[in-house]
């Protein structure tokens, strides 16, 4: 530690000032807070001098320890100035020195290298109160620097480097950022916590096979959103759910795609329609498709309006049924139900044909005396193989329980057992070996 020496009377001039009072108080200035208030730690009382220091990392323990040191050593400061004192050349700053009857310390030394090696030494004591214009010392300028509640930390170990900076203020809340690096991963995180918005944080993580980013909010409305990039894919996620994935096979979206316009696979997406080549409903392009708010159209072969009016050049219904209200229905089996049907053309039923004037069977188009009915209103109706018993074996047989006609032309009438005329019955009988029809 420091030593002491003496110059006795070997001094050219000596000026002495009154001894200072002992120190009784320590004040450590950390800096100023956001409101401009001093942040300090203090120890001791105001019974003596106050030792003020600046240290942004000051603590109460530091103030207490320093005060104890001052009180234990009983620090007394004796100001003086000695000119051309023959000081022991081996003396150092801080050593005690006796000059005549004075004892103080060497706090300043100007040494002249000559045969005498005389020194101008002093314990300066120019009190600030003596100045009309107080000078701001380096220490005081340091005090003005904003250091309120700002802390930084770097931790370096064999396996990890971590750097963190934190700041807290009433306006900003708590801000912090951290960079963490290991041999396999680098991560960067920034967070902010306020009473109003809860905690927001963002994080980027990088390792050899992926880069990921995530932004999270907690407290109040919790949510998170982020993305991840690997060697095979890139995905977006919300909370714990993947909402979009892009890989070599394409893009997969889990959710709703909202777009006002676009082009996908040759299809143009507009505000009111999606189309390919057929850019408007009612367009004249021979090929193309149009799907819009005003209708659907495929080339020139199919069209349906927003009102439901369908125009088709070729319509094949392969199943189900077609109904028009309750008055018409045709099903996939061809069963037609109609409450009212008017046909202006030809109706074919199996091999028969019903026209406006004939009920024809097969390919017969006119009466040909071959057991079919033909003719219009004046000719009656003909059936060639057209009327027969259901399951009967007489294809050319017309059978009826009764038949009434004003007039009947019969070319051949066979298998008749009797005929009744106006109450008279004619029977088929044999007379003289001949079959006759006798009115009996």
């Amino acid at each position, binding site marked *: 530690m420091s030593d002491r020496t003496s110059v006795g009377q070997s001094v050219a001039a000596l000026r002495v000032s009154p001894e200072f009072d002992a120190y009784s108080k320590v004040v450590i200035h950390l800096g100023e807070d956001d409101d401009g208030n001093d942040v300090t730690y203090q120890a001791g009382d105001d019974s003596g001098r106050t030792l003020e220091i600046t240290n942004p990392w000051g603590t109460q323990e530091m103030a207490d320890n320093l005060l104890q040191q001052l009180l234990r050593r009983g620090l007394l400061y004796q100001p003086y100035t000695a000119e051309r004192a023959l000081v*022991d050349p081996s003396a*150092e700053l801080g*050593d005690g020195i006796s000059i005549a009857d004075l004892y103080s310390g060497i706090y300043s*030394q100007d040494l*002249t290298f000559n045969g005498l090696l005389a020194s101008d030494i002093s314990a*300066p004591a120019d009190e600030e109160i003596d100045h009309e214009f107080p000078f701001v010392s380096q*220490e005081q300028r340091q005090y003005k620097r904003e250091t309120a509640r700002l802390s930084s930390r770097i931790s370096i170990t064999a396996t990890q480097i971590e750097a963190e900076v934190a700041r807290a203020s009433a306006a900003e809340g708590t801000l912090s950022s951290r960079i963490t690096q290991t041999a396999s991963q680098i991560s960067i995180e920034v967070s902010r916590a306020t009473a109003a918005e809860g905690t927001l944080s963002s994080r980027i993580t990088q390792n050899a096979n992926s880069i990921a980013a995530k932004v999270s909010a907690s407290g109040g409305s919790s949510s998170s959103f982020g993305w991840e990039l690997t060697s095979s894919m890139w995905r977006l996620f919300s909370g714990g759910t993947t909402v979009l994935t892009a890989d070599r096979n394409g893009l997969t979206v889990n959710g709703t795609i909202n777009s006002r316009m676009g082009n996908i696979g040759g299809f143009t997406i507009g505000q009111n329609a999606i189309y390919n080549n057929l850019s408007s409903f009612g367009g004249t392009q021979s090929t193309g498709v149009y799907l819009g708010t005003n209708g659907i159209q495929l080339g020139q072969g199919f069209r349906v309006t927003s009102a439901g009016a369908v125009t088709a050049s070729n319509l094949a219904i392969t199943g189900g049924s077609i109904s028009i209200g309750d008055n018409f229905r045709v099903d996939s089996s061809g069963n037609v139900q109609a409450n009212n049907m008017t046909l202006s053309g030809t109706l074919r039923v199996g091999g028969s044909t019903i026209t406006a004037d004939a009920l024809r069977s097969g390919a017969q188009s006119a009466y040909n005396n071959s057991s079919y009915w033909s003719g219009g209103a004046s000719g009656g109706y003909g059936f060639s193989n057209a009327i027969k018993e259901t399951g009967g074996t007489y294809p050319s047989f017309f059978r009826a329980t009764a038949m009434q006609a004003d007039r009947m032309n019969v070319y051949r009438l066979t298998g008749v057992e009797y005929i009744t005329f106006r109450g008279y019955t004619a029977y088929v009988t044999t007379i003289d070996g001949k079959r006759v029809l006798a009115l009996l």
Partner: protein
Amino acid sequence: MQNTSALYKRLLTEEHYVETRLVVGESGLLVEESGLALIFGVGANTTRILVEQGGAEDGFSEAVIISMKTYRRLFAGTVPSVGNVVAGEIEITMLKPLGTIPRMAQLIPYIRLSSVDGAEKSEWIKKGVYYIDTRDTTQNVDDIEVLTIHGFDALAKTQADYPSSSISYPALDTDIVQEIANAMGVPVDERTWAIMTGGYRYGLPVGYSQAEVLSFIGAAYGGNWTMTDDGALRLVTLMEMPTESRYLTDEFGYALLIGGDRILV
């Protein structure tokens, strides 16, 4: 106070004079006893022998040193305070030596005590380690070139930013002081470690200079920083000055010695 020999202590109590040497840079000229460089050859074909600095013996003597003064203080201002980091200064006026003095060359003044008859001489004592800051060459009335040098000690280097560091933070104040000393290229005086026992920790001092960081640390112990005569970084507290003691002295104020020891009264 530096450690000194018994001869030194004895000579100090007797009439004596002080010899001075100035070592400039890390190499010097082979000199004779008086300090003048030895010259070999004649006329234009002369040469001086360059030698690696071995100490004061290789330094420039009063024969070429016109004046030399050092200025050192613990307080930055005229008010006692703590947390100061004040660099010492040296001013030299000397006959300009031959050869080139490197930039920021080291300047080490030495002194030793010599008996009046010159028969006894103490060991050489360093009186600080400084570095050239400015130099100026002029000519005196005899057309002899005179070199004026101004220099600072290593504390002037602490105006640089706190160096990049490999230690973990928050770090012990002792580790931080060692980091700064390493950046300055100087050792730390052992008495500093005896003072710094608080175990205070500091965060990475981003944006601060080395001097500012030393200031914070020194203030925490009620001390100020200085460089020793041997060029080491040292913390001197206001509280470490020894209590007053009185030595038995002669009429001139020299302490009387018995067996090389001063007598306390």
